[in-house]
């Protein structure tokens, strides 16, 4: 079993109104040192696959469902493999 965390965010070129609003809220707390916030979402996915099969499965799932490549991009981390 493998646990994978897939992060989906807007491409850098796409305006992220949620991140922008959160940044302004953070700044209103007095944290002037914060200059940018990007919001995104993550999915914890548990697979029976291991090794290279994980990479293949994650790519297919991201390409076909989790990510809209018109505006989004993704990264992922293998959290644990047992």
């Amino acid at each position, binding site marked *: 079993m493998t646990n994978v965390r897939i992060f989906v965010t807007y491409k850098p070129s796409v305006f992220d109104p949620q991140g922008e609003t959160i940044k302004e809220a953070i700044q209103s707390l007095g944290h002037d040192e914060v200059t940018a916030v990007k919001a995104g979402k993550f999915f914890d996915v548990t697979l029976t696959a291991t090794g290279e099969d994980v990479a293949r499965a994650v790519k297919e799932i991201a390409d076909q469902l989790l990510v*809209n490549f018109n505006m989004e991009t993704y990264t992922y981390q293998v959290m644990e493999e047992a």
Partner: protein
Amino acid sequence: MRIAVVVFPGSNCDVDLYEALHSVCHADVEYVSHYQKSLDGFDAVMLPGGFSYGDYLRAGAIARFTNIMPAIIAMADAGKPVFGTCNGFQILTEAGLLPGALKPNDSQQFICKNVPLEVVNSETVFTNQYQKHERISLPIAHADGSYYADEQTLNRLERNNQIVFRYAEENPNGSLHNIAGITNERGNVLGMMPHPERAVELLLGNTDGLRLFESLLENGRVKAEA
């Protein structure tokens, strides 16, 4: 012309769409469940507004996987009219029948009001009863209506005259190029965020949407006579 109105779990403008066609335009229209696999016998298909699958993941993303979707794609490929309003537009982009995507509104708010629009292309099967550059008003009601596409796609839309409706005066949601509605390259698939089906009777306070349905029906009549 026989028209299908597809009902997804979470559709909530399906009745409006059906009644605009049935009660107001006296068209031959039928509800079709997302469970169905066929659109045989239909000449056009319409995807209503609402929140299919609760907008889970992204608006329209899950509806793409329903039984009915291959039949909708086949109709689009056959050149038959395919129309989506609001969530229907989102589904058409997620299914790849229209380019680009709909993002959350820049304001992060759900917006529900009449907005002025410009009819940019009056030569489609959906807009032939409007005048080019005509100013109309239609209701919008959405949280995820900000049209996004990369520069190359936007240039292609402009070049091919695929932008059918643009927000006039103000841009309510941050849509690039003020886009409110686009067609595919062939012109037989239209997606738009505004709701023409909510503006078809004087009783509703607005009839500017009526001619969209009349355009489609007129087009069907011309074809039937030919």
